[in-house]
Protein backbone atom coordinates (compact mmCIF):
# COMPACT_ATOMS: atom_id res chain seq x y z
CA UNK A 1 0.00 0.00 0.00
CA UNK A 2 1.27 3.48 -0.81
CA UNK A 3 2.16 5.94 1.93
CA UNK A 4 -0.59 8.32 0.78
CA UNK A 5 -3.27 5.64 0.93
CA UNK A 6 -2.07 4.46 4.33
CA UNK A 7 -2.12 8.04 5.63
CA UNK A 8 -5.71 8.52 4.49
CA UNK A 9 -6.65 5.30 6.24
CA UNK A 10 -4.85 6.39 9.40
CA UNK A 11 -6.37 9.87 9.43
CA UNK A 12 -9.90 8.99 8.29
CA UNK A 13 -11.08 8.43 11.88
CA UNK A 14 -9.50 11.77 12.84
CA UNK A 15 -10.37 14.06 9.92
CA UNK A 16 -14.04 13.20 9.47
CA UNK A 17 -15.04 13.51 13.17
CA UNK A 18 -13.09 16.79 13.36
CA UNK A 19 -15.01 18.24 10.41
CA UNK A 20 -18.29 17.13 11.97
CA UNK A 21 -17.34 18.57 15.38
CA UNK A 22 -16.42 21.89 13.77
CA UNK A 23 -19.70 22.04 11.85
CA UNK A 24 -21.68 21.20 14.98
CA UNK A 25 -19.71 23.76 17.01
CA UNK A 26 -20.44 26.39 14.36
CA UNK A 27 -24.13 25.52 14.44
CA UNK A 28 -24.34 25.68 18.25
CA UNK A 29 -22.37 28.91 18.51
CA UNK A 30 -24.35 30.55 15.70
CA UNK A 31 -27.69 29.55 17.22
CA UNK A 32 -26.54 30.76 20.65
CA UNK A 33 -25.45 34.19 19.36
CA UNK A 34 -28.48 34.50 17.08
CA UNK A 35 -30.77 34.14 20.12
CA UNK A 36 -29.79 37.66 21.16
CA UNK A 37 -28.61 39.45 18.00
CA UNK A 38 -28.68 39.15 14.27
CA UNK A 39 -25.32 37.78 13.28
CA UNK A 40 -23.09 40.54 11.95
CA UNK A 41 -20.13 38.33 11.23
CA UNK A 42 -19.42 34.81 10.01
CA UNK A 43 -18.98 32.29 12.80
CA UNK A 44 -17.66 29.87 10.20
CA UNK A 45 -14.85 32.28 9.35
CA UNK A 46 -13.88 32.35 13.01
CA UNK A 47 -13.98 28.59 13.55
CA UNK A 48 -13.11 27.18 10.15
CA UNK A 49 -10.88 30.00 8.95
CA UNK A 50 -9.14 31.27 12.08
CA UNK A 51 -9.15 28.27 14.44
CA UNK A 52 -8.89 25.17 12.23
CA UNK A 53 -5.44 26.12 10.95
CA UNK A 54 -4.00 25.17 14.34
CA UNK A 55 -5.42 21.70 13.84
CA UNK A 56 -3.61 21.54 10.49
CA UNK A 57 -0.43 22.64 12.28
CA UNK A 58 -0.95 19.75 14.69
CA UNK A 59 -1.29 17.29 11.82
CA UNK A 60 2.02 18.54 10.44
CA UNK A 61 3.63 17.86 13.81
CA UNK A 62 2.00 14.43 14.12
CA UNK A 63 3.16 13.38 10.67
CA UNK A 64 6.79 13.68 11.73
CA UNK A 65 6.60 12.77 15.39
CA UNK A 66 4.28 9.79 15.06
CA UNK A 67 4.36 8.57 11.49
CA UNK A 68 7.80 9.13 9.96
CA UNK A 69 9.35 6.42 12.12
CA UNK A 70 6.31 4.18 11.78
CA UNK A 71 6.50 4.20 7.99
CA UNK A 72 10.27 3.80 7.72
CA UNK A 73 10.42 0.88 10.15
CA UNK A 74 7.76 -0.76 8.01
CA UNK A 75 9.84 -0.50 4.87
CA UNK A 76 9.02 2.88 3.33
CA UNK A 77 11.85 5.18 2.36
CA UNK A 78 12.00 8.72 3.70
CA UNK A 79 11.45 9.98 0.18
CA UNK A 80 8.33 7.85 -0.20
CA UNK A 81 7.11 9.20 3.12
CA UNK A 82 7.72 12.81 2.09
CA UNK A 83 6.04 12.32 -1.29
CA UNK A 84 3.11 10.56 0.35
CA UNK A 85 2.66 13.26 2.97
CA UNK A 86 2.90 15.96 0.28
CA UNK A 87 0.00 14.40 -1.63
CA UNK A 88 -1.95 13.79 1.58
CA UNK A 89 -1.32 17.35 2.78
CA UNK A 90 -2.28 18.86 -0.57
CA UNK A 91 -5.55 16.92 -0.71
CA UNK A 92 -6.31 17.92 2.89
CA UNK A 93 -5.48 21.58 2.19
CA UNK A 94 -7.56 21.71 -0.99
CA UNK A 95 -10.48 19.99 0.74
CA UNK A 96 -10.39 22.50 3.59
CA UNK A 97 -10.00 25.39 1.17
CA UNK A 98 -13.21 24.22 -0.51
CA UNK A 99 -14.93 23.72 2.85
CA UNK A 100 -14.36 27.35 3.85
CA UNK A 101 -16.44 29.08 1.11
CA UNK A 102 -18.86 26.15 1.08
CA UNK A 103 -19.47 26.41 4.83
CA UNK A 104 -19.73 30.17 4.56
CA UNK A 105 -22.38 29.80 1.87
CA UNK A 106 -24.39 27.29 3.88
CA UNK A 107 -24.13 29.38 7.03
CA UNK A 108 -25.27 32.49 5.15
CA UNK A 109 -28.19 30.68 3.53
CA UNK A 110 -29.37 29.28 6.87
CA UNK A 111 -29.13 32.67 8.61
CA UNK A 112 -31.00 34.27 5.75
CA UNK A 113 -33.66 31.56 5.86
CA UNK A 114 -34.23 32.16 9.57
CA UNK A 115 -34.00 35.93 9.21
CA UNK A 116 -30.99 36.24 11.52
CA UNK A 117 -28.42 37.54 9.06
CA UNK A 118 -27.34 40.96 10.34
CA UNK A 119 -26.41 43.95 8.20
CA UNK A 120 -22.67 43.50 8.82
CA UNK A 121 -22.64 39.85 7.78
CA UNK A 122 -20.25 39.16 4.89
CA UNK A 123 -22.66 37.91 2.25
CA UNK A 124 -20.91 35.32 0.09
CA UNK A 125 -20.35 36.04 -3.57
CA UNK A 126 -18.73 34.03 -6.34
CA UNK A 127 -15.68 36.30 -6.29
CA UNK A 128 -15.57 36.19 -2.51
CA UNK A 129 -15.72 32.39 -2.53
CA UNK A 130 -12.80 32.27 -4.93
CA UNK A 131 -10.82 34.66 -2.72
CA UNK A 132 -11.61 32.63 0.40
CA UNK A 133 -10.37 29.51 -1.40
CA UNK A 134 -7.27 31.44 -2.43
CA UNK A 135 -6.69 32.50 1.17
CA UNK A 136 -7.32 29.19 2.87
CA UNK A 137 -5.30 26.97 0.55
CA UNK A 138 -1.93 28.70 1.15
CA UNK A 139 -2.74 29.08 4.85
CA UNK A 140 -3.38 25.33 5.19
CA UNK A 141 -0.21 24.48 3.27
CA UNK A 142 1.81 26.94 5.33
CA UNK A 143 0.56 25.60 8.66
CA UNK A 144 1.14 22.01 7.56
CA UNK A 145 4.72 22.76 6.50
CA UNK A 146 5.35 24.81 9.65
CA UNK A 147 4.10 21.99 11.89
CA UNK A 148 6.20 19.36 10.11
CA UNK A 149 9.31 21.56 10.13
CA UNK A 150 9.02 22.45 13.80
CA UNK A 151 8.66 18.74 14.68
CA UNK A 152 11.58 17.79 12.45
CA UNK A 153 13.82 20.29 14.20
CA UNK A 154 13.31 18.52 17.50
CA UNK A 155 13.32 15.03 15.97
CA UNK A 156 16.55 15.43 14.07
CA UNK A 157 18.56 17.75 16.26
CA UNK A 158 19.11 18.51 19.93
CA UNK A 159 16.66 20.89 21.64
CA UNK A 160 18.79 24.06 21.25
CA UNK A 161 18.99 23.54 17.49
CA UNK A 162 15.36 22.47 17.48
CA UNK A 163 14.44 25.83 18.96
CA UNK A 164 16.27 27.65 16.18
CA UNK A 165 14.59 25.47 13.55
CA UNK A 166 11.26 26.15 15.25
CA UNK A 167 11.64 29.88 14.65
CA UNK A 168 12.45 29.32 10.97
CA UNK A 169 9.74 26.68 10.67
CA UNK A 170 7.10 29.09 11.97
CA UNK A 171 7.81 31.64 9.21
CA UNK A 172 5.37 30.17 6.61
CA UNK A 173 2.53 30.23 9.13
CA UNK A 174 3.34 33.77 10.24
CA UNK A 175 3.64 35.08 6.67
CA UNK A 176 0.43 33.33 5.57
CA UNK A 177 -1.44 34.81 8.52
CA UNK A 178 0.08 38.24 8.02
CA UNK A 179 -0.81 38.45 4.34
CA UNK A 180 -3.80 36.15 3.89
CA UNK A 181 -5.33 35.56 7.33
CA UNK A 182 -9.07 35.78 7.79
CA UNK A 183 -10.94 38.09 10.05
CA UNK A 184 -14.49 37.29 11.12
CA UNK A 185 -15.82 39.08 8.02
CA UNK A 186 -13.59 37.05 5.71
CA UNK A 187 -11.42 40.05 4.99
CA UNK A 188 -7.66 40.17 4.58
CA UNK A 189 -6.01 42.57 7.02
CA UNK A 190 -2.83 42.75 4.96
CA UNK A 191 -0.46 45.31 3.61
CA UNK A 192 0.27 43.94 0.16
CA UNK A 193 -2.11 43.31 -2.76
CA UNK A 194 -3.63 39.82 -2.68
CA UNK A 195 -1.51 38.49 -5.55
CA UNK A 196 1.70 39.72 -3.95
CA UNK A 197 0.70 38.36 -0.54
CA UNK A 198 -0.19 35.02 -2.12
CA UNK A 199 3.11 34.87 -3.96
CA UNK A 200 5.05 35.78 -0.81
CA UNK A 201 3.22 33.14 1.22
CA UNK A 202 3.69 30.39 -1.36
CA UNK A 203 7.35 31.29 -1.83
CA UNK A 204 8.00 31.18 1.92
CA UNK A 205 6.14 27.89 2.29
CA UNK A 206 7.98 26.43 -0.69
CA UNK A 207 11.36 27.47 0.65
CA UNK A 208 10.75 26.00 4.09
CA UNK A 209 9.26 22.85 2.49
CA UNK A 210 12.51 22.46 0.55
CA UNK A 211 14.47 22.75 3.80
CA UNK A 212 12.13 20.23 5.39
CA UNK A 213 12.78 17.82 2.55
CA UNK A 214 16.54 18.24 3.01
CA UNK A 215 16.27 17.67 6.76
CA UNK A 216 14.12 14.54 6.49
CA UNK A 217 15.74 12.94 3.44
CA UNK A 218 18.51 11.33 5.50
CA UNK A 219 17.30 11.77 9.07
CA UNK A 220 18.30 8.91 11.40
CA UNK A 221 15.28 6.96 12.61
CA UNK A 222 15.43 7.48 16.33
CA UNK A 223 13.76 5.31 18.90
CA UNK A 224 11.77 8.21 20.30
CA UNK A 225 10.99 11.71 19.17
CA UNK A 226 13.02 14.59 20.50
Amino acid at each position, binding site marked *: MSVTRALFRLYRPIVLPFAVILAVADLIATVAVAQFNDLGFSMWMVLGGQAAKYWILTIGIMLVVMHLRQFVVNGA*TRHEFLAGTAVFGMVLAVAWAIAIPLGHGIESALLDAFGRRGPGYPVPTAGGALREFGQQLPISLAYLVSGATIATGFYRWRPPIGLVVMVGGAVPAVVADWQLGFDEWGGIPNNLPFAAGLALSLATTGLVAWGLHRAVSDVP*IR*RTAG
Partner: protein
Amino acid sequence: MIELRDVSVRYGSTVAVEGVDLDLPTGKIYGLLGRNGSGKTSLLSALASFRRPSSGTVRVDGQDAFENPAVMRQTCFIRDTLDTNDSDRVRRLMTFAGWMRPHWDADYAAKLLDLFAIDTRKRAASLSRGQKSAVGVVLGLAARAPLTILDETYLGMDAVARAVFYRELLADYLAHPRTIILSTHLIEEVADLFERVIVIDRGRLLLHEETDELRGRGVTVTGPAATVDTFVAGHPVLGEQSLGGMRAVTLDWRPEPAEVARGEAAGLTFGPVGVQDMFIHLTEANR
Protein backbone atom coordinates in the same frame (compact mmCIF):
# COMPACT_ATOMS: atom_id res chain seq x y z
CA MET B 1 24.75 -10.97 -1.10
CA ILE B 2 24.90 -8.23 1.50
CA GLU B 3 28.09 -6.22 1.26
CA LEU B 4 29.40 -3.69 3.73
CA ARG B 5 32.44 -1.79 2.58
CA ASP B 6 34.46 0.30 5.00
CA VAL B 7 31.31 1.21 6.93
CA SER B 8 31.76 3.71 9.76
CA VAL B 9 29.12 5.26 11.99
CA ARG B 10 29.99 8.27 14.11
CA TYR B 11 27.98 10.33 16.56
CA GLY B 12 29.82 13.60 16.77
CA SER B 13 33.27 12.70 18.06
CA THR B 14 32.18 9.21 19.15
CA VAL B 15 33.05 6.42 16.74
CA ALA B 16 30.50 3.62 17.08
CA VAL B 17 31.51 1.57 14.04
CA GLU B 18 34.80 1.91 12.23
CA GLY B 19 35.77 0.56 8.83
CA VAL B 20 33.71 -2.62 8.87
CA ASP B 21 33.97 -4.81 5.77
CA LEU B 22 31.57 -7.73 5.60
CA ASP B 23 30.23 -10.05 2.93
CA LEU B 24 27.09 -11.83 4.05
CA PRO B 25 25.73 -14.47 1.68
CA THR B 26 21.94 -14.44 1.83
CA GLY B 27 19.76 -17.26 3.11
CA LYS B 28 21.52 -17.87 6.40
CA ILE B 29 21.01 -17.15 10.07
CA TYR B 30 23.74 -14.91 11.44
CA GLY B 31 24.54 -14.25 15.05
CA LEU B 32 25.87 -10.77 15.69
CA LEU B 33 27.74 -10.73 18.97
CA GLY B 34 29.43 -7.94 20.81
CA ARG B 35 29.75 -6.46 24.25
CA ASN B 36 27.66 -3.53 25.42
CA GLY B 37 28.52 -0.44 23.40
CA SER B 38 30.45 -2.43 20.82
CA GLY B 39 28.50 -0.90 17.92
CA LYS B 40 26.07 -3.73 17.12
CA THR B 41 22.95 -1.58 16.93
CA SER B 42 24.74 1.17 15.01
CA LEU B 43 25.98 -1.38 12.49
CA LEU B 44 22.51 -2.87 12.13
CA SER B 45 20.98 0.61 11.81
CA ALA B 46 23.31 1.31 8.89
CA LEU B 47 22.50 -2.07 7.37
CA ALA B 48 18.74 -1.42 7.65
CA SER B 49 19.01 2.18 6.37
CA PHE B 50 17.76 3.55 9.67
CA ARG B 51 20.89 5.65 9.58
CA ARG B 52 23.15 6.67 6.72
CA PRO B 53 26.70 5.45 7.40
CA SER B 54 29.12 8.29 8.12
CA SER B 55 31.31 6.70 5.46
CA GLY B 56 31.34 3.50 3.45
CA THR B 57 28.62 1.70 1.56
CA VAL B 58 25.98 -0.92 2.24
CA ARG B 59 24.82 -2.89 -0.78
CA VAL B 60 22.17 -5.58 -0.97
CA ASP B 61 22.14 -7.76 -4.08
CA GLY B 62 24.34 -5.22 -5.79
CA GLN B 63 22.17 -2.19 -5.02
CA ASP B 64 22.92 0.64 -2.63
CA ALA B 65 20.65 0.08 0.35
CA PHE B 66 20.12 3.58 1.73
CA GLU B 67 16.79 5.07 0.63
CA ASN B 68 16.40 2.35 -1.98
CA PRO B 69 12.70 1.37 -2.04
CA ALA B 70 13.43 -2.07 -3.48
CA VAL B 71 15.83 -2.83 -0.61
CA MET B 72 14.06 -1.12 2.26
CA ARG B 73 10.71 -2.76 1.50
CA GLN B 74 12.48 -6.14 1.77
CA THR B 75 14.25 -5.31 5.03
CA CYS B 76 12.73 -5.62 8.48
CA PHE B 77 14.71 -4.31 11.44
CA ILE B 78 13.20 -4.91 14.87
CA ARG B 79 14.97 -3.04 17.64
CA ASP B 80 14.99 -3.87 21.32
CA THR B 81 12.64 -0.96 21.92
CA LEU B 82 9.40 -1.44 20.06
CA ASP B 83 9.23 1.19 17.30
CA THR B 84 5.63 2.17 17.80
CA ASN B 85 3.59 4.98 19.22
CA ASP B 86 2.53 4.31 22.78
CA SER B 87 -1.09 4.99 21.94
CA ASP B 88 -1.21 2.34 19.21
CA ARG B 89 -3.06 -0.85 19.96
CA VAL B 90 -1.38 -4.14 19.06
CA ARG B 91 -4.16 -4.83 16.56
CA ARG B 92 -3.39 -1.55 14.79
CA LEU B 93 0.33 -2.36 14.67
CA MET B 94 -0.42 -5.64 12.93
CA THR B 95 -2.85 -4.01 10.51
CA PHE B 96 -0.35 -1.32 9.63
CA ALA B 97 2.42 -3.85 9.04
CA GLY B 98 -0.03 -5.73 6.80
CA TRP B 99 -0.58 -2.57 4.74
CA MET B 100 3.11 -1.92 4.25
CA ARG B 101 4.82 -5.31 4.21
CA PRO B 102 4.57 -7.12 0.88
CA HIS B 103 5.06 -10.61 2.37
CA TRP B 104 3.03 -10.06 5.56
CA ASP B 105 1.32 -13.22 6.83
CA ALA B 106 -1.64 -12.11 8.95
CA ASP B 107 -2.59 -15.66 9.94
CA TYR B 108 0.91 -16.38 11.13
CA ALA B 109 0.95 -13.11 13.07
CA ALA B 110 -2.32 -14.08 14.76
CA LYS B 111 -0.89 -17.50 15.62
CA LEU B 112 2.23 -15.97 17.16
CA LEU B 113 0.22 -13.43 19.15
CA ASP B 114 -1.80 -16.32 20.48
CA LEU B 115 1.34 -18.28 21.37
CA PHE B 116 2.74 -15.28 23.24
CA ALA B 117 -0.68 -14.64 24.83
CA ILE B 118 -0.77 -11.01 23.68
CA ASP B 119 -4.09 -9.22 23.95
CA THR B 120 -4.42 -7.36 20.65
CA ARG B 121 -6.70 -4.74 22.23
CA LYS B 122 -3.89 -3.53 24.47
CA ARG B 123 -2.05 -0.33 23.73
CA ALA B 124 1.72 -0.44 23.29
CA ALA B 125 2.18 1.67 26.42
CA SER B 126 0.39 -0.88 28.58
CA LEU B 127 2.47 -3.87 27.44
CA SER B 128 5.13 -5.25 29.76
CA ARG B 129 8.77 -5.25 28.63
CA GLY B 130 8.53 -8.91 27.66
CA GLN B 131 5.24 -8.42 25.83
CA LYS B 132 6.73 -5.56 23.84
CA SER B 133 9.57 -7.86 22.83
CA ALA B 134 7.07 -10.53 21.85
CA VAL B 135 5.18 -8.05 19.68
CA GLY B 136 8.51 -7.15 18.08
CA VAL B 137 9.13 -10.83 17.36
CA VAL B 138 5.68 -11.13 15.77
CA LEU B 139 6.29 -8.06 13.59
CA GLY B 140 9.71 -9.39 12.61
CA LEU B 141 8.72 -12.95 11.77
CA ALA B 142 5.31 -12.36 10.18
CA ALA B 143 6.79 -9.71 7.87
CA ARG B 144 8.72 -12.54 6.16
CA ALA B 145 11.16 -9.93 4.91
CA PRO B 146 14.04 -11.39 2.88
CA LEU B 147 16.38 -9.57 5.26
CA THR B 148 15.13 -9.81 8.84
CA ILE B 149 17.17 -8.20 11.60
CA LEU B 150 16.29 -8.81 15.23
CA ASP B 151 18.26 -6.71 17.70
CA GLU B 152 18.00 -8.09 21.22
CA THR B 153 14.31 -8.73 20.75
CA TYR B 154 14.27 -11.15 23.68
CA LEU B 155 14.59 -8.43 26.34
CA GLY B 156 12.24 -9.05 29.22
CA MET B 157 10.86 -12.27 27.74
CA ASP B 158 10.55 -15.14 30.18
CA ALA B 159 12.17 -18.52 29.47
CA VAL B 160 8.99 -19.97 27.99
CA ALA B 161 8.47 -17.02 25.65
CA ARG B 162 12.12 -17.16 24.56
CA ALA B 163 11.81 -20.88 23.85
CA VAL B 164 8.72 -20.18 21.72
CA PHE B 165 10.61 -17.42 19.93
CA TYR B 166 13.59 -19.65 19.08
CA ARG B 167 11.36 -22.53 18.01
CA GLU B 168 9.20 -20.37 15.77
CA LEU B 169 12.20 -18.58 14.33
CA LEU B 170 13.78 -21.83 13.25
CA ALA B 171 10.54 -23.36 11.99
CA ASP B 172 9.62 -20.28 9.98
CA TYR B 173 13.14 -19.96 8.62
CA LEU B 174 13.04 -23.55 7.40
CA ALA B 175 9.62 -23.03 5.84
CA HIS B 176 10.50 -19.61 4.38
CA PRO B 177 14.28 -19.39 4.00
CA ARG B 178 15.64 -15.87 4.24
CA THR B 179 18.53 -13.96 5.75
CA ILE B 180 18.14 -13.46 9.49
CA ILE B 181 20.54 -11.52 11.66
CA LEU B 182 20.16 -12.00 15.38
CA SER B 183 21.93 -9.69 17.77
CA THR B 184 22.02 -11.13 21.24
CA HIS B 185 23.79 -11.34 24.57
CA LEU B 186 22.19 -14.70 25.41
CA ILE B 187 24.76 -16.48 23.31
CA GLU B 188 24.51 -20.03 24.59
CA GLU B 189 20.72 -19.95 24.33
CA VAL B 190 20.69 -19.27 20.61
CA ALA B 191 24.10 -20.39 19.43
CA ASP B 192 22.63 -23.55 17.93
CA LEU B 193 20.55 -21.41 15.57
CA PHE B 194 23.51 -19.55 14.11
CA GLU B 195 24.99 -20.70 10.84
CA ARG B 196 27.57 -17.94 10.98
CA VAL B 197 28.83 -15.78 13.78
CA ILE B 198 29.94 -12.17 13.52
CA VAL B 199 31.78 -10.63 16.47
CA ILE B 200 32.42 -6.93 16.73
CA ASP B 201 34.21 -5.10 19.49
CA ARG B 202 34.79 -1.40 19.93
CA GLY B 203 33.21 -0.80 16.56
CA ARG B 204 35.57 -3.07 14.69
CA LEU B 205 34.98 -6.46 13.14
CA LEU B 206 36.77 -9.14 15.17
CA LEU B 207 35.51 -12.28 13.54
CA HIS B 208 33.17 -13.62 10.90
CA GLU B 209 33.12 -17.40 10.70
CA GLU B 210 30.92 -20.42 10.22
CA THR B 211 29.64 -21.43 13.65
CA ASP B 212 31.05 -24.95 13.30
CA GLU B 213 34.45 -23.57 12.38
CA LEU B 214 34.35 -21.32 15.40
CA ARG B 215 33.48 -24.21 17.65
CA GLY B 216 36.23 -26.27 16.04
CA ARG B 217 38.83 -23.64 16.85
CA GLY B 218 39.10 -24.74 20.44
CA VAL B 219 38.64 -27.60 22.85
CA THR B 220 37.71 -28.18 26.46
CA VAL B 221 40.11 -30.46 28.31
CA THR B 222 38.82 -32.13 31.48
CA GLY B 223 40.62 -34.36 33.92
CA PRO B 224 42.87 -34.46 37.01
CA ALA B 225 44.15 -30.96 37.69
CA ALA B 226 47.84 -31.76 37.43
CA THR B 227 47.43 -33.72 34.19
CA VAL B 228 45.31 -30.96 32.67
CA ASP B 229 47.83 -28.30 33.66
CA THR B 230 50.63 -30.25 32.05
CA PHE B 231 48.66 -30.84 28.87
CA VAL B 232 47.49 -27.25 28.36
CA ALA B 233 50.76 -25.57 29.24
CA GLY B 234 51.79 -23.06 26.60
CA HIS B 235 48.41 -22.88 24.89
CA PRO B 236 45.95 -19.95 25.01
CA VAL B 237 43.42 -20.56 27.77
CA LEU B 238 39.86 -19.27 27.27
CA GLY B 239 38.61 -20.26 30.70
CA GLU B 240 38.95 -22.78 33.46
CA GLN B 241 36.91 -24.35 36.22
CA SER B 242 38.02 -26.56 39.12
CA LEU B 243 36.09 -28.86 41.38
CA GLY B 244 37.99 -30.89 43.94
CA GLY B 245 40.94 -32.40 42.17
CA MET B 246 39.35 -32.10 38.74
CA ARG B 247 39.83 -29.25 36.33
CA ALA B 248 38.24 -28.24 33.02
CA VAL B 249 40.21 -25.87 30.84
CA THR B 250 38.95 -24.36 27.60
CA LEU B 251 41.61 -23.66 24.99
CA ASP B 252 41.73 -21.55 21.85
CA TRP B 253 43.78 -24.30 20.25
CA ARG B 254 42.86 -27.45 18.38
CA PRO B 255 45.11 -30.42 19.35
CA GLU B 256 46.19 -32.91 16.71
CA PRO B 257 44.58 -36.38 16.87
CA ALA B 258 47.83 -37.82 18.21
CA GLU B 259 47.85 -35.29 21.05
CA VAL B 260 44.21 -36.08 21.82
CA ALA B 261 45.08 -39.78 21.95
CA ARG B 262 48.01 -39.05 24.28
CA GLY B 263 45.75 -36.95 26.53
CA GLU B 264 43.03 -39.59 26.61
CA ALA B 265 45.61 -42.18 27.55
CA ALA B 266 46.55 -39.93 30.47
CA GLY B 267 42.92 -39.81 31.64
CA LEU B 268 41.80 -36.59 29.96
CA THR B 269 38.56 -36.06 28.09
CA PHE B 270 38.06 -33.59 25.23
CA GLY B 271 34.92 -31.65 24.42
CA PRO B 272 33.81 -28.83 22.10
CA VAL B 273 34.09 -25.17 23.01
CA GLY B 274 30.95 -23.12 23.40
CA VAL B 275 30.48 -20.08 21.21
CA GLN B 276 30.10 -17.99 24.34
CA ASP B 277 33.48 -19.08 25.70
CA MET B 278 35.10 -18.21 22.41
CA PHE B 279 33.32 -14.86 22.35
CA ILE B 280 34.45 -14.01 25.88
CA HIS B 281 38.02 -14.91 25.06
CA LEU B 282 38.10 -12.93 21.82
CA THR B 283 36.60 -9.78 23.27
CA GLU B 284 38.70 -9.90 26.43
CA ALA B 285 41.88 -10.46 24.47
CA ASN B 286 41.04 -7.41 22.38
CA ARG B 287 41.14 -5.13 25.44
